[in-house]
């Protein structure tokens, strides 16, 4: 005897949708099982009571009140309805507009990540050096948190990149203790045409370093923001970054510092 199974059929039975065979089985069960019969009978009685609830007459003044309230109201006129246009149209137009705005923003944004312009606070923490390579236009980005992200950048233009690169590496090793870590010094993805060096030098030796750099290539100081280099003699250690690029490359360095 499975009371649960029979009880689950009560509603179908109540709606008169139970098949003849199942109805007979259920009726037979109800004759034998008193708990099921009680449940069934109370459910049946409940439905009877609900079906026999009287229908109330609405107040006579109801329609007059509604019509009076409607006197000064106008019908809503949905645009897409009056023009007999499909219902999905407003959503479609919205999606198309969103797509259009995204494309326009993507094209207009000057930076590598268009959303940086939308969130200025994140943008000012990023130092970006644009290093167009000979073959491909790629970008070198140094974020806040990267070693030396707020450090001045100098651009050294050289004729023979690979030779200057070697010279610079050996020269810089004499200026910095501990020796220049190779991993940190080569951040550029274009190792054949550009390389970023990052180092700390004693403030007193900085003029000497600048002279040495001038010997290797043309030091483009017009693009360098070097406030920290103003009085190098007073500082024990000065952090600098040097970007060495081959002469033909068009390099634009933009340093964005915190608080700007």
């Amino acid at each position: 005897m499975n009371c649960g199974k029979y009880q689950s059929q009560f509603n179908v039975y109540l709606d008169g949708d139970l098949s003849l065979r199942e109805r007979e089985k259920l009726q037979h069960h109800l004759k034998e099982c008193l708990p099921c019969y009680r449940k069934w009978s109370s459910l049946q009685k409940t439905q009877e009571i609900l079906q026999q609830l009287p229908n109330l007459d609405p107040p006579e003044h109801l329609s007059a009140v509604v019509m009076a309230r409607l006197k000064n109201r106008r019908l809503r006129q949905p645009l897409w309805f009056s023009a007999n246009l499909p219902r999905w149209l407003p959503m479609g137009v919205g999606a198309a507009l969103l797509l259009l705005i995204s494309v326009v923003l993507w094209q207009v944004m000057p930076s590598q990540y268009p959303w940086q312009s939308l969130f200025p606070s994140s943008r000012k923490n990023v130092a970006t050096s644009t290093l167009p390579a000979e073959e491909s236009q790629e970008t070198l980005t140094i974020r806040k948190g990267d070693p030396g992200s707020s450090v001045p950048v100098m651009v050294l233009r050289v004729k023979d990149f690979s030779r200057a690169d070697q010279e610079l590496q050996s020269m810089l090793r004499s200026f910095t203790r501990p020796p220049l870590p190779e991993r940190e010094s080569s951040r550029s993805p274009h190792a054949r045409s550009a390389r970023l060096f990052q180092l700390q030098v004693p403030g007193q030796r900085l003029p000497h370093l600048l002279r040495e750099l001038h010997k290797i290539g043309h030091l483009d100081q017009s693009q360098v923001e070097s406030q920290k280099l103003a009085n190098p003699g007073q500082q024990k250690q000065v952090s600098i970054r040097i970007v060495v690029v081959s002469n033909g490359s068009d390099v634009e360095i933009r340093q964005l510092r915190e608080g700007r």
Partner: protein
Amino acid sequence: MGTESLAQHSSGVKRQEEQLLVDGCRRGDRESFAQLMRLHEKQIYNFTYRMLGSEGEAEDLTQDIFIAAFRGIRSFRGEAKFSTWLYRIALNQARNRIKYLSRRNFFARQTRRADDGANTGSESPEGLADSSPTPEQWTMAKDLAAQVQECLNQIPPQARQILVLRDVQGFSYDELSEMLSLRPGTVKSRLHRARAAMRDCLSEKLE
């Protein structure tokens, strides 16, 4: 013409007439709307009364439902029956009103009033008793109607609406499915739970 086809024909004619009235409303003809309202006000008023358990609240809600229907008549595209569309508005408005009244403890106060014997509803109990009831039968039937309404007020609104639409107003599962935007299977299982909740409440009260 058999009885069934006669009924179908009559329902088709009614639907055509209704469509003409709807077209009139869409053109802003208020008289057409008044006629439409006369066709449906009793059903809607009874629905709102069973949902709220108060004649005053039911009247206010019925007014709001018809006003919302008039204002939105142009969004009725005739894909469903007008009554189905109207009930969708009614269900939506009733849900909002129940939320509003529940926040103000309206239903709890109604129950307390009923417990104190202060229910003065004007429900005619003819339907609950014989055609010529004795005064005792009349009183008993009136009490029963009040207890049924009290139970309706106590069960969750979702169960209440499905129970009123199916067992009180006699809508089919297909119509319920369309009004509530639910699958027929979901309607059945919700009705099953609603009936059980109502039975438990009534059994407790009538014991």
